[in-house]
């Protein structure tokens, strides 16, 4: 049986679109390191993580639409539901690395919220994704724990990126419109506010383990339930559309 978006409530579609768009854009942003990673082996590892996230995005989009490419690439910016954390360029390695950790800590909780979903395809997907995400979290931890044990320069690089990106990460939990419908239907098991509390515990636990002390920030404002795009988004989207607009009717 293939589910289509017509079987889902608007709140469910909104929640899943938000997750799918986050996976799409974090994967695309991670993939911009291809050929530019700090060393060859890490270049491959980071872009492999990017591919995993893009794979999750495709699998989620397939539940929402018949035409994944169009939905993924050709919506108007206002119709995307990504969080700003996933849209940011993060052109410096310390920022990309810290975002990877912050995002994957959140992704873990989102898959947990889908693990016993009333939509069977989401249960399957959550189980598959978690097998990949274990490695993603280990990867982030291996680097950040080494940087934490390293010199002042490395520690400062991490702290600078955390200070800037954590407020964006906390805004991942800004609930989408109609979230309660998705909860009532059992598509997701946990409200954003509860996921946010678990997230804080896990992120604080990591920082504590690494010996970083920070003043806990508040979430950025302005996403307006994920309906507003961040500065620079249109340019980013255009870069992703470069191939598809050459021939929008082409079949791959």
């Amino acid at each position, binding site marked *: 049986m293939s589910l289509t978006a017509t079987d889902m409530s608007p709140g469910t579609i909104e929640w899943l679109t938000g997750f799918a768009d986050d996976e799409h854009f974090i994967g695309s942003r991670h993939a911009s390191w291809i050929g530019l990673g700090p*060393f*060859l*082996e*890490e270049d*491959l*590892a980071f872009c*492999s993580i990017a591919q995993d996230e893009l794979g999750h995005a495709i699998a989620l989009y397939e539940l929402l639409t018949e035409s994944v490419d169009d939905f993924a690439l050709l919506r108007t910016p206002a119709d995307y539901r990504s969080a700003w954390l996933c849209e940011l360029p993060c052109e410096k390695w310390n920022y990309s690395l810290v975002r990877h950790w912050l995002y994957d800590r959140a992704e873990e909780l989102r898959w947990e919220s889908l693990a016993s979903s009333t939509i069977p395809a989401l249960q399957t997907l959550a189980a598959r994704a978690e097998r990949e995400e274990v*490695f993603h979290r*280990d*990867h982030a931890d*291996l*680097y950040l724990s*080494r940087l934490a044990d390293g010199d002042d320069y490395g520690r400062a690089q991490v702290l600078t990126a955390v200070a800037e990106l954590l407020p964006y990460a906390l805004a991942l939990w800004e609930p989408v419109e109609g979230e309660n419908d998705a909860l009532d239907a059992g598509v997701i098991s946990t409200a954003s506010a509860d996921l946010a509390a678990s997230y804080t515990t896990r992120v604080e636990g990591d920082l504590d383990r690494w010996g970083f002390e920070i003043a806990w920030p508040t979430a950025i404002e302005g996403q307006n339930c994920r309906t507003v795009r961040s500065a620079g988004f249109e340019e980013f989207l255009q870069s992703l559309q470069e191939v598809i607009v050459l021939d929008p009717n082409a079949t791959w």
Partner: protein
Amino acid sequence: MNTYEVFLKKAGREEFRHVGSMQAPDPELALPLARESYARRAEGDLMWLVDRDDLIVANEALIAPNADKPHRHNDGKRVADRRKRERGEA
């Protein structure tokens, strides 16, 4: 950075085979990086990494003198010919 030699083995009776080398800062980080560099398309089921510094490397002078001993090569032809003769086939 350390250099590691990477070996992979597929299921079944095939032996471990050298598939290449790679760099990593330490053994713990070398494992996931090796996985992504050499096994991300399921090229193997088991993986060994050997720090290149741990290899016991033979001096070329130790190996070279054996290059000119054709009498140590046996292609089995003389034995096969004798057996054929004894079976009366040749």
